[in-house]
């Protein structure tokens, strides 16, 4: 791709940064159009730096462009206000619809319903969605992997682990192996309940926060909650 003059290039970069909230596809299309516009403007301006500066000013701020791009499309005949004009593209513009709610449900409890696998299906749906931005996808994946299943594990594992006999009498010189070799003694039974409960609470809070972010970004990016 041909290089833009530095002032124009920095405008494009500002726009790319400001556009992280947009759904990935829309962001790419917007940046591409603006880049094309600036290419034309730069070719026309030639050596006239002022003319190029004017062309960049005429575009308006990147933030204003993003605001325009993330606005719901009332006014553009997208939602049946004019009867029947909104059909194509309507599916991917509807904010969280059935597909998005399924994704959210799988991310939250999929790992419990179908252990581990359910969550992965949720992640796959998340990453193939055109509603969520790249940033939202990363947050949705990394903020609490396995969703509430992780909190579930934190609570259940120490309890079941403490059932097995980990106690080592002080006078016993050789430490006995326990019946639960996959879980080292001390993770559960040795940890105080307060720590376990705090940790579980933190995981639950993070998960709720992550899900709320996904709902909000799907709604804000595309206009309305279905």
């Amino acid at each position: 791709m041909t290089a833009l003059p530095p002032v124009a290039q920095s405008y494009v970069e500002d726009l790319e940064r400001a556009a992280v909230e947009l759904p990935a596809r829309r962001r790419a299309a917007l940046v591409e159009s603006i880049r094309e516009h600036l290419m034309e403007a730069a070719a026309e301006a030639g050596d006239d730096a002022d003319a190029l500066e004017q062309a960049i000013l005429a575009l308006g701020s990147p933030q204003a462009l993003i605001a325009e791009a993330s606005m719901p499309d009332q006014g553009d005949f997208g939602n049946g206000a004019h009867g029947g004009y909104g059909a194509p593209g309507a599916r991917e513009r509807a904010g969280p619809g059935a597909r998005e709610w399924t994704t959210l449900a799988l991310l939250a409890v999929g790992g419990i319903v179908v252990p581990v696998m359910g969550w992965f299906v949720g992640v796959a749906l998340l990453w193939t969605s055109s509603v969520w931005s790249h940033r939202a996808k990363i947050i949705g994946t990394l903020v609490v992997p396995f969703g509430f299943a992780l909190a579930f594990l934190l609570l259940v594992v120490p309890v079941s682990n403490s059932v097995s006999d980990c106690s080592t009498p002080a006078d016993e010189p050789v430490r006995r192996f326990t019946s639960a070799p996959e879980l080292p003694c001390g993770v559960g039974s040795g940890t105080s309940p307060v720590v376990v409960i705090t940790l579980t609470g933190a995981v639950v809070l993070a998960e709720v926060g992550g899900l709320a972010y996904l709902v909000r970004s799907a709604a804000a990016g595309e206009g309305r909650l279905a």
Partner: protein
Amino acid sequence: MVGTAAAPVAELRRAVLPVCVLALIQRRSLYGYELARIMGQRPELLTSHGTLYPLLLRLEENGLVTSVWRPSPAGPRRKYYANTAKGSALLRQFRREWPNFVAAVDACLAGDLPMDGSP
């Protein structure tokens, strides 16, 4: 969205800008920069050129315009926009309705409407 009394002209611009785009590309297909230059002659329509691109994106998503990439004689390729049948139909409908709408608003502004409500 309920129009705010604060900026009726801005609201109006947002509403009619898409139709203006449809009307211009009805004459021949245009690429974005060209469209910005043409509309930029009337700052009442296009306060900032950048606004055009999110609009074109939405029109395309809604199936009112289509676009094709074509090489340009000098420099990078250009994305040309044209109306779909649906876009043309919408434009025709708007062309029919707009004069009556303008006349009605003008009548209000000019004080030409009878105040007793009789026809």
